[in-house]
Each structure stands twice: as structure tokens, then as C-alpha cells.
């Protein structure tokens, strides 16, 4: 919402400076977005007169002008390229040092083609005031010489733009802003705004309301109007706030709307058929609006219709069939009070944004409807002539004011504000609240009709899961309490938030424990980064095509209104983003020397809902250094990364098992899943399937893993038992097993461990051999077993027995035999 200070002065008596006004606006919740000060923007430009103009000796298109620009510049030479520069012309002159906003340059004195030029003669475009320029601006021949152009053109009128929050429909007018400023103590709201204009003759049109969305409607015919351009002052006002002047009738309705907040509409009365204007449900079908677009209406929508059909989409936009034009002489003005929700629903469905809709859906002042009509009438009559007919109305002007009670203690107990209750009451009265009842503890107010946001008892939306009793108890006082909050808020913003003293929070009582996930994330993050993985944050949505490579796409996870075609599907795994990241960085030649490694912790969507996943990829090759060739990452890197994270989260390797059944986007022979127990899959690891690698333009191997962080159980907090610090030396024995190709190392290790769970403290695979020395289809597994005697050293017999137990256990479990 923009307004100029001169316009504000129409409604508010004040002496404050622009800066003070802006400070108060911010303090009271009308956020200043920008301030335009033409006097600053156009400083330096002054009126002048060309004394004589002659051809530049060395340039056909240039002229040498002798200019009188007043004191200090009485007789100077300016080189000018404008064809219309001529003697006796009154012009705008920019002396050296003037900033030219339209060209973004600062004028300097100098020579042009060898001739001295001591300034510049300007077009309006160069001042940033007009679009086109056919040479320099021509001022009236009565224009004084040497006057600041801003003063001459009466441009010294700063324009303030403020952001109006959706609850403050009452501030969408110059008068509404003036009222707020006045209440805050900055000046006094002017009264005597309204004239009542007696209509002549009999009404020739009636209103009929058949839509619940129209509460009150009023209108009148004005005959014999001259429609044409508005006077300059009106045009300038509209332009100052960014509106383009159209014609007197349209400009007046806009002007009154901006001034008073009440949207108006002007119909060309000769284009209306019949003598009834019907506010009713639209006939489903198309409606050609003033903006030249066709809108498809439904029976829900509210229109104003004449005998032949809709002439206006009520509260939103007029119809082209009844629009005023330059030939209009008889105009029917309409002003109404429409239901905010109805206007909002239709406006949103049709996607049509107008100043009228904007105001109606935020709530206009119902008591302003009649006044706005009278103001507009008066202005049309005075500027365009004509004769006003009688006012015709239908419906009922809302007059019931809601009540809201303020317990004065709440100023302190809610807002932390120490203030005199009388002062609080005074602020509210200045805003138009009327005291209905008051005692020492509290005051009850009648809420002004224009404050739809205060004590607006909307229905609750209580959780369905609440018990009936809880829901009732919670809802019992809610309307009164919210109304009270409204009043506290009003007092607070007028008094100023800076009066509230900060108070330290008391220590927490019985705060709940932080979430497990939030405690884990920093640890996991640091572990991964410490292993050389770079943390990334990718979008939660990816392209449907990419997503389909990873999982059968659920249409439930597809955005109804994506922002771009390649961001339309919620990702099934962050691997989608990570592989694209790998592709992009490698394509740019980045990620050399083992640096093409990334991880992300974030949501993944799909069959199992929205869960937090850790995913990582390693691509490219490791660094070369003497004695070490560059290496591609492999599945074991991924498994090692994954296992390291799980260990850190309290899941020792021995408690997990590996199965070779990772999702299909992994290389089927070089991937697996880590499980706890037979069912719970915690994560997968492996190499990227070569087919996907091709799609992602990745030529080398890619190692990757995923871990479902929400599935990793939280380790039970056990009190630690005393450590085993046996003084007996551990004994290590190596075994070599001849195992069939289908024997899994995991099973061999497990069988070894099972041979003597007390004595065997560690089992490690130290060698895998496949080659000619073995029967075909067999491999040799070198296993190191650590024995930790507890009470006394092991005897040879014990060691032999153990070796036998190991051999038999492995043989039984896997069929692998000991190599001798």
C-alpha cells in the first residue's frame, strides 16, 4: 500500500517529519517497505529558458544554446542534441554535478565536439518521469526561471510504501493509515469528510439481493457526466502510488477506494438493461471481464446481473459489457459490502487479483459504504458535471459491534508491559474502540466495525484425537481469551514494543528428552566427513525419471503442482541427488584424488513413508602417490563406511548379518544389506549398477550406501561391567579352510566363533586365495583366531581340542574343510 504525504495530510493533521512518520509506522506494525523522495531523487534540476540557439560549428545535429537558469547560471552555454531546442523555450536544466536518474549518470561540465557545455537540458525520461522522449521537455512559457524543478512541478511529495499484514484490511486506505497514526499520537484524524448529496428525480433502478455473499449494496445514477481525462492533481495522486490514470470515472472510483478503502464500481448506465440490478449466483459459464480475460463462473460465484446477465463479478472485477468509456454520460455507481470469504474463494479459484478483491477479502468497513458513494458522487459532479439521482440500497448495513474485554493485568502477564490502565483505554479509544463497561480490573469494549480481526470468533479446528472433555475444557474460554489478546496487541503496538523489558527464562521444569535422531546426527555427520565424505544438502524432490530408476514410483509422492518438470517427484533416496552431484562435479573436472565422495542426511520418501536416511557415494579415483596407483572405489569401501557408522551408533559388527540382496539399483553381484536379526534391514551397500552408471554418465565404479537412521535401534544404556584385564597372553592361531565357491565368509567366521564362545575373543579373515593349487570352484580362506585364556594358560591338549572344535564347527556349518 502506497500513499503520499500530501494525501495523508488530507486525513491527518500533523507536523511530524517523514522520518518520524516512518518510525511510528514501523512501531505500530505498518512496516515501511520503501520511501520515495522525489525532492532527493531530482535534486539539482531547475527551470530555465533558452535565450538563443544556434548550430554547433562542427556537428549538424547539435545546437549551441545560451541558457538562463537563474542565479549562478544566468548566461551559460549548453550543447544540446534535441531537435526541439529553440530560443525562448522554457526547459529543465541540470547543472554540473546533477545525477540523472533516467540515464544513471552524473553531469559534468566539459566540451562537446570542441564547444563548452556547462550542463544539460533534459527530457522527462532523463528525470525518470516519462517513458518516451521526443527531445527535451517543454515547460509552459509562464514557468519561472531558476526554480527547483521539483517545486515547480509540485513533485515534492514523498511516497511511502508500507506492507499491510493480512489481518489489517482497515489499513488498506489512506484514511485507515491516518487513523492508526493518529491513535499512536502522531497528529489528529480530520473529521468532516463526508458530504451528503441529495439525489434528484425518482430512482430508475432497484437492487435485488439473492446471494448470501452480499450483505449490503448501494448505488446511484449520475446523468450527464463528461467523461474524459482526470484533472492533473488527480492523475498525479494516482500516479504517485503507482496507478495509471484512465478516465475521470474510473479514476474517481480508484481514488475513493485508495482514500477510504471502499471499492466502488462504475457502470455505463446506458449499457445496463432492465431496471433491476440483481446480486445473485452466477449462471455457470464464461464472463468477459474488464481485464479482457474470460473467466468460467460457477453457481457458487456472486455476480451483479442486469436483465441480460452478469455485468460484474461482485467485489472482484467489472464486466466489459457494461464498462464506462470516453462516451459515457450516464454512470451508475455501485458500492457494497460483500462477504470476505465468498470474494476470496471466487478470486482464488479464478486466479484474478484486483484491488477490490484484495480489500474485500481482508474485510472492508461496512460503515464506509454509503460515505464512499457520496464522496465519489461529489467528486464526479465537481469534476465531470452531471446530475445525481437518488441513492438506492438493498440489504442491511451491518451495525452490530462485537465485544472484547481486557483484564488490565494481562498487559503485564501476557505482554510483560507495565502501564497505566487509563493509558491503555485511551489508545483503544483512539482506534475507535468504545468503552461499554469498565471497572478497576477490566474494561469491555465495543469493537469498531472496520476491525474484522479483533474478537473475530472463528470456529476452532481441534485435533480429532482429543478426548471430549479435554476438547471442551480447552475451547471453553478461547474466544474471550483471543479477543483479549487482540486488545493487548493493539495497546502493545501503539505503546511500542520497546517498552517491554526482556526477562530471562526460568530454568526448565520437566523438559522432555531430546530426540534420539537429533543427538545422533552431529555424530554421524562428523564420522562421515572424517572418513572423507563431503556433506551436501539436496532438494527433496527430483525428476520423476530419475526417481523411477531407483524405485517403482508412488504417485502419492508426486507433487500436484511442481515448480519445474524436473522437480516433480519426492525422492525415494538421496542417492538420486548424490549421483547427480557426482556426475556434475566429475564433469567439471572436480573431485580428483579421492575427493569425489559425498554424503547427505535427509528425508527419503516412498513405501516406508518419510524417513531420515544417510546416503553416500564415492566415485572418481584415489590420489596417486609413489608406490600407490590410483584406485577406483569398490563395494568394500561402502561396506566399511556403513559399518563404521553403525559401530559408532552402538551396533557392533558381530551383531549384524550381511545378505546379498540389495535393491536393484546396486550391482547385483557386488552389493548387500546389513541386517539386525532376520527381518530388520538397517542399510544397503555396494557398487552402482552399471546400467545406472551409464545413465548418470559415470564411467568408473561408484561405491555407495544407504542407512535408515530411524531404524537403527538405540543401544540400551547398560552400566558397564568391569573390563577383562587378564594378565594371560592371548594366543593366536591361523587356520586355512578350503571352501566351496558358494560358502560365505560370514558363515565360516560365525562357525569359528561358535566353536568356543568363551575362549575365542576375535576372528579375522586375513587371506582369500583362489588359484591353480586348489581344486576348481574352491577358494582358501585364511582365518586368524584369537584365544583369550581367562584363568590359566592353555595347555597343548586344550589348544589341540580347540583346533579340532573349530574345524568341526566350520565343517558342519559350511562344508569347508581344513587345509593341511
Amino acid at each position, binding site marked *: 500500500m502506497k500513499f503520499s504525504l500530501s494525501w495523508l495530510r488530507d486525513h491527518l493533521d500533523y507536523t511530524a517529519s517523514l522520518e518520524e512518520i516512518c518510525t511510528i509506522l*514501523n*512501531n*505500530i506494525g505498518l512496516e515501511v517497505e520503501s520511501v520515495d523522495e522525489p525532492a532527493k531523487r531530482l535534486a539539482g534540476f531547475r527551470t530555465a529558458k533558452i535565450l538563443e540557439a544556434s548550430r554547433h560549428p562542427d556537428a549538424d545535429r547539435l545546437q549551441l544554446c545560451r541558457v538562463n537558469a537563474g542565479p549562478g547560471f544566468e548566461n551559460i552555454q549548453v550543447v544540446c542534441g534535441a531537435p526541439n531546442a529553440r530560443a525562448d523555450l522554457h526547459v529543465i536544466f541540470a547543472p554540473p554535478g546533477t545525477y540523472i536518474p533516467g540515464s544513471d549518470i552524473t553531469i559534468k561540465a566539459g566540451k562537446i565536439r570542441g564547444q563548452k557545455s556547462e550542463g544539460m537540458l533534459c527530457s522527462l525520461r532523463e528525470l525518470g518521469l516519462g517513458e518516451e522522449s521526443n527531445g527535451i521537455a517543454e515547460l509552459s512559457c509562464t514557468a519561472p526561471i531558476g526554480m527547483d524543478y521539483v517545486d515547480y512541478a509540485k513533485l515534492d511529495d514523498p511516497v511511502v510504501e508500507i506492507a499491510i499484514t*493480512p489481518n489489517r484490511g482497515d489499513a488498506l486506505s489512506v484514511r485507515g493509515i491516518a487513523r492508526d497514526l493518529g491513535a499512536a499520537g502522531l497528529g489528529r484524524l480530520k473529521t468532516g469528510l463526508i458530504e451528503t448529496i441529495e439525489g434528484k428525480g425518482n430512482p430508475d433502478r432497484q437492487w435485488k439481493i439473492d446471494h448470501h455473499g452480499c450483505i449490503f449494496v448501494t448505488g446511484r445514477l449520475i446523468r450527464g457526466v463528461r467523461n474524459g481525462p482526470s484533472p492533473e492533481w488527480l492523475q498525479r495522486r494516482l500516479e504517485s502510488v503507482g496507478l495509471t490514470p484512465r478516465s475521470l470515472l474510473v479514476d474517481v472510483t480508484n481514488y475513493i477506494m485508495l482514500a477510504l478503502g471502499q471499492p466502488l464500481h462504475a457502470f455505463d448506465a446506458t449499457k445496463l438493461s432492465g431496471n433491476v440490478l440483481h446480486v445473485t449466483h452466477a449462471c455457470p459459464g464464461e464472463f468477459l471481464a474488464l481485464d479482457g480475460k474470460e473467466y468460467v463462473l460457477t453457481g457458487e460465484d456472486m455476480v451483479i446481473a442486469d436483465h441480460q446477465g452478469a455485468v460484474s463479478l461482485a467485489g472482484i472485477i467489472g464486466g466489459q459489457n457494461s464498462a464506462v468509456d470516453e462516451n459515457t454520460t450516464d454512470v451508475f455507481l455501485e458500492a457494497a459490502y460483500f462477504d470476505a470469504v465468498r470474494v476470496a474463494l471466487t478470486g*482464488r479459484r479464478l486466479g484474478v487479483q484486483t484491488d477490490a478483491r484484495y480489500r474485500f477479502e481482508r474485510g472492508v468497513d461496512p460503515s464506509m459504504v454509503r460515505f464512499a458513494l457520496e464522496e465519489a458522487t461529489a467528486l464526479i459532479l465537481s469534476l465531470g458535471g452531471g446530475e445525481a439521482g437518488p441513492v438506492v440500497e438493498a440489504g442491511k448495513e451491518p451495525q452490530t459491534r462485537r465485544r472484547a474485554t481486557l483484564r488490565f493485568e494481562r498487559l*503485564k502477564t501476557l*505482554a*510483560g*508491559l507495565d502501564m497505566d490502565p487509563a493509558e491503555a483505554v485511551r489508545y483503544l479509544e483512539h482506534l475507535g474502540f468504545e468503552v461499554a463497561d469498565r471497572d478497576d480490573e477490566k474494561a469491555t469494549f465495543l469493537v469498531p466495525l472496520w476491525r474484522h480481526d479483533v474478537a473475530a470468533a472463528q*470456529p*476452532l*479446528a*481441534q*485435533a480429532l484425537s482429543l478426548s471430549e472433555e479435554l476438547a471442551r*475444557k*480447552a*475451547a*471453553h*474460554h478461547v474466544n474471550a*481469551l*483471543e479477543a483479549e*489478546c487482540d486488545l493487548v496487541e493493539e495497546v*502493545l503496538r501503539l505503546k511500542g514494543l*520497546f517498552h*517491554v523489558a*526482556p*526477562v*530471562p*527464562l526460568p530454568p*526448565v521444569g520437566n523438559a522432555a528428552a*531430546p*530426540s534420539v535422531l*537429533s543427538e545422533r546426527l*552431529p555424530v554421524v555427520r*562428523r564420522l562421515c*566427513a572424517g572418513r*572423507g565424505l563431503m*556433506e*551436501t*544438502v*539436496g*532438494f*527433496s524432490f527430483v525428476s520423476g525419471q530419475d526417481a523411477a530408476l531407483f524405485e517403482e514410483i508412488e504417485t502419492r509422492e*508426486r*507433487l*500436484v*503442482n511442481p*515448480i*519445474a518438470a524436473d522437480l516433480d517427484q519426492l525422492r525415494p533416496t538421496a542417492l538420486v541427488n548424490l549421483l547427480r552431484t557426482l556426475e*556434475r*562435479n566429475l564433469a567439471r573436472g*572436480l573431485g580428483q*584424488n579421492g*575427493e569425489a*565422495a559425498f554424503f547427505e*542426511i*535427509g528425508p527419503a520418501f516412498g513405501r516406508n513413508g*518419510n524417513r531420515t536416511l544417510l546416503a553416500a557415494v564415492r566415485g572418481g579415483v584415489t*590420489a596417486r*602417490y609413489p608406490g600407490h596407483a590410483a584406485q577406483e572405489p569398490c563395494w568394500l569401501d561402502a561396506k566399511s563406511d556403513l559399518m563404521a557408522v553403525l559401530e559408532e551408533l552402538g551396533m557392533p559388527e558381530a551383531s549384524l548379518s550381511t545378505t546379498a540382496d540389495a535393491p536393484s539399483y546396486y550391482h547385483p553381484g557386488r552389493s548387500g544389506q546389513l541386517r539386525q536379526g532376520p527381518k530388520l534391514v538397517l542399510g544397503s551397500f555396494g557398487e552402482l549398477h552399471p546400467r545406472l552408471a551409464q545413465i548418470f554418465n559415470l564411467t568408473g565404479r561408484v561405491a555407495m550406501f544407504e542407512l535408515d537412521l530411524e531404524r537403527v535401534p538405540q543401544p540400551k544404556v547398560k552400566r558397564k561391567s568391569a573390563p577383562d584385564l587378564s594378565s594371560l597372553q592371548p594366543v593366536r592361531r591361523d587356520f586355512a579352510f578350503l571352501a566351496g565357491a558358494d560358502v560365505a565368509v560370514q558363515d565360516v567366521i560365525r562357525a569359528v566363533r561358535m566353536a568356543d564362545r568363551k575362549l575365542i575373543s576375535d576372528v579375522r579373515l586375513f587371506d582369500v586365495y583362489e588359484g591353480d593349487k586348489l581344486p576348481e570352484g574352491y577358494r582358501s580362506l585364511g582365518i586368524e583366531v584369537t584365544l583369550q585364556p581367562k584363568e590359566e594358560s592353555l595347555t597343548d591338549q586344550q589348544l589341540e581340542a580347540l583346533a579340532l572344535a573349530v574345524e568341526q564347527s566350520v565343517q558342519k556349518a559350511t562344508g569347508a574343510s581344513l587345509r593341511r
Partner: protein
Amino acid sequence: MANDLEALRHETLQALKEAVTRSEWDAVRVGVLGRSGKLTMLLRQLGQCSPEERKARGQELNRLRDELTSLVEQRGKEIEELALQSRLEAERVDVTRPPVLAPQGLIHPISRTIEEMTILFAKMGFNVAEGPDIETQWHNFSALNTPDHHPARTEQDTFYLPPANDDSEAQVLRTQTSGVQIRTMLTQSPPIRIIAPGRTYRADHDATHSPMFHQCEGLVIDRDVTLGHLKYCLIEFLRAFFDKPDLPVRFRPSYFPFTEPSMEVDIGWSRQSGELGAGADWLEVLGSGMVNPRVLANCGLDPSEWQGFAFGMGIERLAMLKNGIADLRSFYESDLRWLRHYGFPVLSDIAAMGGR
């Protein structure tokens, strides 16, 4: 000394001198002092001498044995030292060669900022709470006092998803993490003190808007919490986060459906230099307010018993201001050069997060 002993002595000295390796030396030692070494043999033959001879020769032999033993030992040490010296010489390398460093990953500035916020609010008794990215409209809007037709609901460009099942309404990608507040109020009894950092989504994409970004919201519910507490909490946080104990903080009345009174929070900065805490301009960084009684009632809390405050801030925005990051979109582009430039080392001083 007898001639033979003199010869043996001479011979041994010569041999020791010639022994260079440990095995040569050992051969000398064994050949003289070993079990069947020359000197040992001579000592053994002593028994065959007459008693008079035995005494004199015995003394001589013993003296020679002591001498040779010490000479052999001495030579042994010399040889050991020589061997060590030559090994050290042989093992000499070019120590100017670069070290082998494993590539180091870094923490993304968004994560780091969330961690900093978590720590600063934890000091004031806040715990972290989480919720799903896909929300029902009730959790994202209705419970937060934003009814269907409310202009605030149209101002947010919301991403919609098909309904979870046939008879439910469309779901949304959360436009704020307020749903977490709602869930907390439904499942936890007050007093409540949580922050909810997380991903949020709005259908907006340009230089200053990203369709996905992060927010951190906070909620305090108690019996006597006032706007004074809100001010303290946010002033403390902002000054600590930006490590500027005198950072100007301004509270400005505003409007959110879920709080009342509502206010936006600005910090002082210089528009010209971009420096925080300097200059005469203000920069909006937060939204906040006292929780609207309707929101409490929607969640089953009796507003005549409980009240509190809530706030919300953009994580990227604060990260950009604190770390001088210019472009919002670069957060999600995962360009290694950018990540290396703005990422935080794993072991960077956690205590320094937020300065004080």
C-alpha cells in the same frame, strides 16, 4: 708372556681388526673364547702343567682372557655402531616429500548452523523435536489457526500431494515446521521448550527463493511465560549467534495467524557495507509472537491455564548473514569448490559455535 700366548694375542687382535660384520666378529669371538676356542683350549690344557708352571701360566692366561674378552666386546660394540650407521645412511629419504593425507570431508553450512542453533537454545533449556516433511493440511494450516479461506494461506505457495487415501484431503509439503509444534503439544504435557529445525517447502524459485529451504522454529509453553521472556530469549540468541554482544535488535508488530501479539524481529546492519550491528538500517531475521489461544485449544491445552511464545527463522538466511554467503541457490548445488569454501571442518571448535 709365553710366545704362544703372545702370538695368540697378536693373531686375535689382527682378526678382530679385520672383522667387519657381526658374523666375522662372532667367528673371531668363538674361535678364541668359545667352548673350543683357542684360549679356552689353552686354559683347559693347564691341568697338564706342573704346579709351578701352572700358577704362572694360569695367571698369564687369565690376564690374557680378561684382556681379549674386553677387546672382543669393545670391537663388538664398534661393529654394532658401524652397522647402525650404515643402516641409517642407507635408509636416508627425501623428507621434503609431501605427506599422504586422506581427503577430509566438511560439514555443510546448513547443518553447522542448525547445530549452532541447537547448542545456543539448549543453553536456554530447549530440546530438538522433529516431524515429517509431508503434513496433513490440518497440521500445517488448520491447527495453526489458518482456515481454508484465510489470506495467509493463499500467500504461501504450497506444494500439494495427492491424498494419503481416497477419503482424505490433499497432503502438503510443510510450508513451515510448525506442524512439529502441533505434534509436540498433542503428545507432551507442558511445560514445553522445543526447537524444530528442518526442511520446509514453498512453490517459489528465483534468486532469493528456493522451493526447499530450512527453518528453525521454537515453542515455549508454560504458565507464566510472557512477551518479556520472548524478547530476552531471542535477543540472547541473536547476539550469541552473531557473536555481537551489542547487536541492536528491534521488535516490530506484525501478524501471523498462529501468534498474538505477533512481531517480526530486525537486527541492525549497514545496507551499504553489509556489516551487522553497524549502520542505521534494519534487517528482518525472525518472526515471533505469543501463541494464539486458538492454537492451544486446537491442541487440547486450556488457554486459561497455559500460554507461551513461538518463533521461526530461516536457517539459510541466518547462515548467509553470518558466513557472508551471497547466493541462496548455491547451498543446494553441491559444487565441490563451494562446499570446500564454506564447509566446516569436522573438528572445528564446537565451543566457539555462537561465540560465547
